[in-house]
């Protein structure tokens, strides 16, 4: 997933695992299976569990998106299993490169939960394994000392940030992965109940909700590290671990790292809560993401069957038991711990799935192009939103949508 990219994103991890089958796999796999997925801990856990079946070769890379579609388009496909997130599934489905899985699910997927089945046009195209969302993580010790209640809205969060800043206990009260400001805007705008499009493809962000979302982001920057525009997920992780920030709206998948005694100086001091809502009565300003697997279309049915069985072995209860804190698993046998509480509360409070689609990909780029000038003070909110819409139109015309 793009947003969990480490600092050195070009770093490619190659896990070559063609060793003979070892225990804990229910069957011995004879068909060579190749996996392409992102390189973060959850994928490492799943692919090494797959490798136990034998003849599995995994290519984990943060640049997986750039080669996955091309690899799947080859005949035969260069990969059998693809690791995708809700956004990176879109190009594969658009180009017709993934295999409908309904019959394989019927034959082998008895243990799958219904909410693991991702359907497009009624057909199962992907099996989700984990969920992810940005939600509030905060330093419980600081909040307790200063007597601050957990903020449920951004108004309360700003008040809390102000109090923390005055108390001067940490360098910056608030942190965030604002290198991807587009996602911060998407989250906030959806929290205000905004819609991105009218008539499916016409942009519709230039409205009062858009202005409100922008103004709120601007207010938050006052409490952030001034280098917020270069701060990615790894940067925020280090800020937390080194005790330089008191709270952040941050990826659930990174929660375990904050409690890792090998890296973190704040073990046991971080608590999880739902993502705050922009205001009372509104849903949380966050979107729900998932990661899961797809099976390539351009391979033989026998290969697809082997790949599917291997994938299920990788995503079984044993793997979850061994890697319980690596992610918020959607897989049977997962017992939610305290690290998952924030993400679950965010979903329970009504956060929506990220609306991944072709036009949303374009919208995301348009926001990324135009938002930073507003945050840096070069443009007012209305001009920024008008510029986003104009940029989207250019992109959509070029892509053939308008």
């Amino acid at each position, binding site marked *: 997933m*793009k947003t969990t990219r480490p600092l050195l994103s*070009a770093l490619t991890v190659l896990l070559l695992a063609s060793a003979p089958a070892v225990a804990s796999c229910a069957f011995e796999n004879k068909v060579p299976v190749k996996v392409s997925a992102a390189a973060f801990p959850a994928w490492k856990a799943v692919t090494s569990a797959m490798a136990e079946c034998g003849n599995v070769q995994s290519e984990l890379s943060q640049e997986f*998106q*750039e080669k996955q*579609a091309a690899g799947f388009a080859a005949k035969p496909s260069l990969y059998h299993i693809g690791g995708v997130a*809700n956004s990176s599934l*879109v*190009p594969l489905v*658009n*180009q017709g490169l993934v295999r409908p899985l309904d019959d394989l699910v019927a034959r082998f997927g008895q243990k799958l939960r*219904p*909410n693991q*089945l*991702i*359907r*497009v*046009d*009624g057909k199962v195209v992907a099996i989700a394994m984990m*969920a992810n969302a940005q939600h509030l993580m905060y330093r419980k010790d600081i909040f307790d000392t200063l007597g601050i209640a957990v903020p449920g809205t951004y108004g309360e969060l700003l008040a809390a940030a102000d109090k923390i800043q005055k108390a001067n206990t940490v360098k910056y009260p608030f942190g965030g992965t604002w*290198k991807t400001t587009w996602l911060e805007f998407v989250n906030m705008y959806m929290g205000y109940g905004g819609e991105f499009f009218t008539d*499916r*493809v016409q942009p519709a962000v230039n409205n009062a909700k858009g202005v409100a979302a922008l103004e709120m982001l601007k207010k938050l920057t006052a409490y952030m*590290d*001034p*280098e917020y*525009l*270069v701060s*990615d997920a790894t*940067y925020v992780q*280090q800020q937390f671990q080194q005790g330089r920030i008191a709270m952040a709206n941050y990826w659930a998948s990174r929660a375990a790292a904050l409690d890792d005694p090998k890296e973190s100086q704040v073990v046991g001091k971080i608590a999880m809560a739902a993502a705050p809502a922009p205001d009372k009565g509104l849903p949380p300003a966050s979107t*729900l993401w*998932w990661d899961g697997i797809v099976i390539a*279309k351009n391979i033989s049915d026998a290969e697809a069957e082997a790949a599917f069985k291997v994938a299920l072995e990788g995503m079984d209860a044993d793997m979850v038991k061994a890697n319980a804190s690596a992610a*918020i698993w*959607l897989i049977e046998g997962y017992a939610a711990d305290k690290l998952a509480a924030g*993400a679950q509360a965010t*979903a*329970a409070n009504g*956060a929506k*799935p990220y609306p*991944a*689609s*072709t036009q*949303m*990909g*374009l919208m995301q*780029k348009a926001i990324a*192009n135009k938002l*930073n*000038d507003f945050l*840096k003070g*070069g*443009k007012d909110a209305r001009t920024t939103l008008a*510029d986003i819409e104009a940029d989207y139109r*250019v*992109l959509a015309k*070029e*892509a*053939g*949508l308008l």
Partner: protein
Amino acid sequence: MKTRALLVFIAPSVVMMLVFIALPLTTVFWQSFHVSQPVFETVRVENCTTSFLSQVCTTEEKTRPVLGPDGKMQMRSSFVGLSSYANVLEMGKAFAALADRNWRALMAINFWKALRFTLTFTFLTLPIVLLLGVTLALAVDSAARSLRGSIIFVSLLPFIITPVIGALSIKWLFIGDGILTSLLETWLQRDVAVFAQSWSIELIMMFYRVWHVAPFAFLIFYASLQTVNRDTLESAIIDGASRWERVRYVVLPHLAPVLVFVTLIHLMDSYRVFEEIVGFSSQAHVISLQWLTYDFLKPDDSGNRSISRASASAMLTMIGVVVLLAPLLRRTWADFRGSRP
């Protein structure tokens, strides 16, 4: 016979040029005037995604690309004239901003923002690189023979380091509470945030580029210094010329053609500044023309790319390089014509 031998000798190089330069260039040129896009259809479909606890299904109208009988996306290609160029340049907006004398509005347009940085970067680093290169070369040339080897080795080190790695290491010295930022903070007794505004990032980028390419200039100048006419130098000393006068009237004229050469190379290279943007991850603050092309070309999360605009932007960069080099090339050409018997 002579011409034939010449042809045979240059043939491989000509073929390579055609295949690896002329052909791609023609394709890019063609692409910048055309747009290829998938054919879309709108259908009512049921999609299901997951929240944490339940499955979320929605039935709605979706726009999706049409797949042809071969299972591939149906594409159509159309001639769009100069519209990709217009979309890169955004002249309407640029003129409006100029008419208002609104510099910030002009700098909000990606192309002009990138051009501003690219030109600043190119023309600020050029004199420093030349000066540093000449100074280093003169210094090494007059250093004791036994020291030269080690001095040359040390000064070449920055040139050996892979550009992206070099940029990353310098970024880590400064980003957040990096070592050098912390030092600056204790020294100045105030909060320093190098990556919070563009001028400080630009400064580091230029520092980095000079650090990285000055050894190249030094190497060329130093090599050229070895062929300075010693007799002329000696007679200059006998005539009572000071050290500065010897440099000014003997050494620099001798270096002139190499100065032009290093200038040419540096202009070409720095006009295509790219590694710095990626290495310092400065795209939120500072972008360059080459990075703009790359950004158009990079697929977004849903797999869309702006290939036509990327081509247009690449052509514009090439035109920029040609314009930049034209005066120098014309001079060299004139010298060449003049020196012919």
